[in-house]
């Protein structure tokens, strides 16, 4: 089952002589249970593509479908973008981005409550996720008191809270050492398999690409075909 389909996506910053094409003719699909890596040097358009898929940036042309629903087509306004993000996308950030004044458990509860889940159910679900991610013992700790790896696990828990079909991970291993980074990649793979989610990981980290099902590379705003990789 296709979770994400990107069709003829194009994005141009500015207009007239100052126009800069950041993305050109991007077409790809990600299936349920697939772990995809999106690689590319700085300025290749990775972040722009991530922002477009996240419904934060409206593309200049093309369309995006998530879980069978067209969430963006040319000319659409992002009126429902926050609701769609809550329901369909889970985010994992490079800097973990846990809310610093909430405990590990509350960070997960918040994502559930924002999606309309009741307090008690949210707490129960958060505890299940903490257990799944093996950080139950840190449930009441504030992010500042967690290690980098623990923070990333809690952040993954938050991304999984609403069981979104699509998980977007922005450089999830960048702030971790090889061993911890490897464990996070294992975890993402497990999530993709066990939960049947599509996981797209934007990364610079060539050490980790062996673990991905699909690797796509961006250069100058275009997706490269396999022959162009070298």
């Amino acid at each position, binding site marked *: 089952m296709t979770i994400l389909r990107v069709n003829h996506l194009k994005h141009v910053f500015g207009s007239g002589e100052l126009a800069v094409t950041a993305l050109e003719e991007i077409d790809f699909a990600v299936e349920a249970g697939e772990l995809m890596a999106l690689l590319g040097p700085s300025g290749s358009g990775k*972040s722009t593509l*991530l922002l477009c898929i*996240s419904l934060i940036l409206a593309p200049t042309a093309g369309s995006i479908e998530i879980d069978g629903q067209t969430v963006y087509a040319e000319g659409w306004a992002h009126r429902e973008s*926050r*609701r769609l993000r809550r329901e369909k996308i889970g985010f994992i950030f490079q800097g973990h*981005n846990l809310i610093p*004044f909430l405990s590990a458990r509350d960070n997960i509860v*918040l994502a559930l409550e*924002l999606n309309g889940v009741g307090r008690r159910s949210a707490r129960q679900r958060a505890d299940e996720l903490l257990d799944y991610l093996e950080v139950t013992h840190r449930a009441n700790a504030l992010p500042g008191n967690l290690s980098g790896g623990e923070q990333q696990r809690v952040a993954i828990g938050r991304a999984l809270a609403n069981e979104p079909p699509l998980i977007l991970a922005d450089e999830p291993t960048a702030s971790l050492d090889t061993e911890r980074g490897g464990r996070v990649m294992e975890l993402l793979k497990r999530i993709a398999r066990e939960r049947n989610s599509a996981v797209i990981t934007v990364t610079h980290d060539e050490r980790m690409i062996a673990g991905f099902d699909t690797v796509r590379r961006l250069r100058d705003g275009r997706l490269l075909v396999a022959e162009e990789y070298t």
Partner: protein
Amino acid sequence: MDLAIKDVRRHLGKFLATIAGVGMLVAIVLIMNGIFQGNIADGIWLIENTRADLWVVERDRGGPFNESSRIPTDSYRSVAATPGVARASPFISYAVQREIGDREQQFTIIGYDVFGGLGEPGRIIAGRPIRRAHYELVADRKLGLALGQTLRLGVHDYTVVGLTRGAVDSGGNPLAYLSLPDAQEVLYQQDNRALEVQRESDRQRLEDAGYSSTEVERLLPLLGGGSATISAVLVALTPGADRDAVARHIERWLYLSAYTTEQERELMLEGKLKRMTAILGVFRTLLLAVAIVIIALLIYVLTMEKVRAIATLKIIGAGDGVIVRLILEQALVLTLGSFAFGWALTTATQDKFPRNLVLLPEETMLTFIIMLVGGVLASLMGIWHALRTPPSLALGG
């Protein structure tokens, strides 16, 4: 989940310190309100305690409290003879400064007719009113005197026979009541050396005017400094008497000014208390503005600290309402906390305050509403900044 409260818990020290600081500013505002209303209450009490229908003072003078007024003592007899007047009592009031209990104290002496006249002391908490013509004193406890203690004023000692509580003038100075002759003596009696100088000056003027030495000796006693003046005559009207008509009659035939109690109160509010109103008003406005600016700055700084968290909230799907509530609630916590602290501090110290503080509920409520509106306005800058924060800020390292 209440994000604001969770954040307050994390920054508890910062919030408590701000609440204490801003709360003290609020306390100063409330105390200023209290001082101002206390002065009005004291001034009005002094007027109303006399239970006079009319105040008769020197022609075109705003006396006796706002401006000095001197009229002959005997004029109260003429006032008493006016149709519609049931009772007319002489009254004198003046400020003095004396050393009492090893410290200089300013107080106001009130002299009145102790045998049934108007203007007798109120708020007596110990002892009794003055019952003898001389050498008895009723003093406010703020002077630090005790019953039975004597106070030297001029050349005589006066025994404290009664103590009052809260009997002060509009400036907060305690009152000391004497019989009218005693009050006049304290005011006018000169020491022997001053009398000699005055007598020599009078002699020289008579001789310069061509009087013989025999005539000078005969005239000199008549020129002696008189003590036969009072500040006002307090008037009680007969039932059914037309107050305005009696006042007009006194002004026309006795060449004095007569004010009703309401007019006397207006004179005090318009005169002595008007400038204080303006000064306290400016200070209160400035202090409230400073308090609100402090809250605004702290909220703004806390919002700036949270900008990445706010971007994250947006990216994980939090609506604007969640973000507005986060900032607004913190502004309200600061505002309400500061007001509560200030109010508690004011009420806790109210009785120990050296001035009479009158905290009117409506004025306290107005201050609260101003603080509340200010607190909401203070959060606007932070809210504006938070709403403009792009969710993309959450991405990247």
